[in-house]
């Protein structure tokens, strides 16, 4: 099976190429996109919820179970060595991919949510006391709100929220005012899943560091769209999910600066996170294993490694350029629909379009589009405070990836005209 990466090296004029990015060839790597839904070609516009997987990732999963499956770190036999190398190989890849200093800083987790919970539980409980404050923003996903709320309830700390403007951008002046001696952590999303806003993370980190406050970055939506360099950002914690970046579900990673991890207590107890156990005392393992209790999602990690290779093979520069043009085209196509209003109009925006249509509920929009084979997300997108901020009960959301086409955006616009006709 040829991958897009191999195909890109083929010489000769590609037919649908934009700046060396040939979306039709990319689409061949994603078998699920070939299917028909209700007799129509699938138009998948819900990649912010989960991305589709290239053949190389699917093959890696079956190959792992067919040829490499064994438990890691403990066996002295051949298969265990193969599995351990595959698992640890992905850790190394993640380290290089996000430019961490050491593999000690890469902790495998189930996904972004578990990564944030790990930090809230382990770092938070130790460092946050009654009267302290944690700063988040008004555009956070529930997974970057609730763990902090739980910590606040437990410790008596207070949650402070950076407001956003009508375009869905952070109000940085207000952010600066929120920071004070009581602030113990800033937890902030890099790219909003419901608005598409790209936050100025480097600036946010610098401002926090001026007050000696560490920063956790929720990178779930950033990884599929933009190059992440944790050294450049200088963030203290960074979390992401494999399944948003074309890898399998149930695996992701937490990056944390080694100095912080060294001082953090284990998150869960069990196998792999220990050096020795007696009934009197347990000696914990070294980093990063101290934070990985129980048999992990080994196959998932192997698949994630392949997904990162795949993305790197295409290159973020090409992805960003293509998606920018795709977003421009899709926004323009939707703008021709009179009663439609886009929610989230930040200057710096990823390929996510949330919208409402006067008098038509998003659920009805979603059901009618589904009959055309078009998959969009409708509802509150796990960001109920964002819905409250814009005074809408829900939105429809089309989120695009590099395997989507301008023709698909046009089909969405056509489908929406049909929705309005049907509902009037």
């Amino acid at each position, binding site marked *: 099976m040829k991958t897009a990466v191999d195909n890109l090296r083929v010489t000769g004029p590609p037919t649908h190429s934009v700046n060396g990015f040939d979306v039709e060839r990319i689409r061949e790597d994603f078998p699920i996109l070939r299917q028909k839904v209700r007799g129509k070609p699938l138009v998948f516009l819900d990649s912010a919820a989960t991305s589709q997987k290239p053949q190389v990732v699917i093959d890696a999963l079956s190959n792992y179970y067919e040829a490499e499956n064994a438990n890691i770190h403990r066996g002295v036999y051949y298969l265990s060595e193969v599995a351990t190398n595959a698992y640890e190989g992905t850790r190394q890849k993640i380290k290089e991919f996000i430019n961490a200093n050491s593999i000690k800083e890469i902790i495998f987790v189930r996904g972004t949510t578990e990564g944030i919970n790990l930090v809230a539980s382990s770092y938070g409980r130790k460092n946050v006391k009654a009267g302290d404050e944690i700063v988040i923003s008004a555009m956070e996903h529930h997974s970057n709100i609730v763990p902090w709320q739980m910590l606040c309830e437990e410790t008596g700390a207070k949650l402070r929220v950076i407001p956003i403007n009508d375009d869905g951008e952070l109000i940085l002046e207000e952010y600066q005012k929120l920071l004070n001696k009581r602030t113990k952590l800033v937890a902030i999303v890099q790219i909003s899943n419901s608005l598409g806003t790209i936050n100025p993370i480097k600036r946010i980190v610098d401002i926090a560091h001026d007050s000696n406050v560490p920063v956790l970055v929720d990178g779930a939506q950033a990884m599929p769209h933009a190059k992440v360099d944790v050294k450049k950002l200088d963030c203290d914690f960074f979390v992401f999910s494999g399944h948003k970046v074309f890898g399998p579900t149930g695996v992701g990673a937490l990056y944390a600066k080694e100095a912080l991890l060294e001082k953090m207590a284990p998150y869960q107890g069990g196998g792999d996170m220990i050096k020795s156990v007696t009934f009197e005392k347990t000696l914990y393992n070294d980093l990063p294993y101290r934070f990985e209790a129980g048999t992990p999602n080994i196959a998932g990690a192997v698949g994630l490694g392949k997904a990162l290779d795949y993305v790197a093979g295409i290159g973020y520069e090409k992805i960003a350029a293509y998606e920018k043009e795709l977003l421009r085209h899709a926004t323009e196509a939707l703008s021709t629909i009179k009663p439609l209003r886009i929610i989230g109009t930040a200057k710096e925006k990823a390929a996510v379009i949330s919208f409402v249509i006067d008098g038509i509920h998003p659920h*009805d929009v979603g059901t009618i589009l589904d*009959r055309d084979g078009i998959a969009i997300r*409708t509802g*509150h997108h796990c960001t109920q405070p964002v819905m409250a901020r814009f005074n809408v009960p829900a939105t429809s959301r089309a989120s695009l990836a590099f395997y989507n086409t301008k023709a698909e955006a046009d089909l969405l616009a056509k489908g929406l005209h049909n929705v309005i006709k049907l509902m009037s």
Partner: protein
Amino acid sequence: MDDLRELYQQVILDHNKNPKNFRKIEAANRSAEGYNPLCGDRIDLYLHVEGDVIKDISFEGAGCAISKSSASVMTTVLKGKSTAEAEQLFKKFQKLITSAPGAEPDLQDMGKLAIFCGVREFPLRVKCAGLAWHTMAAALKNENTTVSTE
């Protein structure tokens, strides 16, 4: 397209745009709040019951066309009915919208509610159509708690 037209019948669209009994009953002696956490749909249901007769029934809230029109039609059907009849109709309605897609629906005694038979072809929308009814049943039991579809 045909099953979409069957789901979004003109009567349903009309109730969505101009819902009946869309108000609060100040003198309500039964009320409940219904909530669908998946989509954020919310409904406040008010009842004025005398003896075992529903003298007045109304609702407020925000939701999709299916949930709003279902609530609207329900209020018009239940006004003047006994609480036992209301509970009977709830069971029949529930059976109608959850019957197997493609099968011939049993529309006997359904009256105006028959317009919702298209919902059975859209299993993901059954909760939308049922929200008002679940909330009504909770209000009759005088459960002043929030009803959730989950």
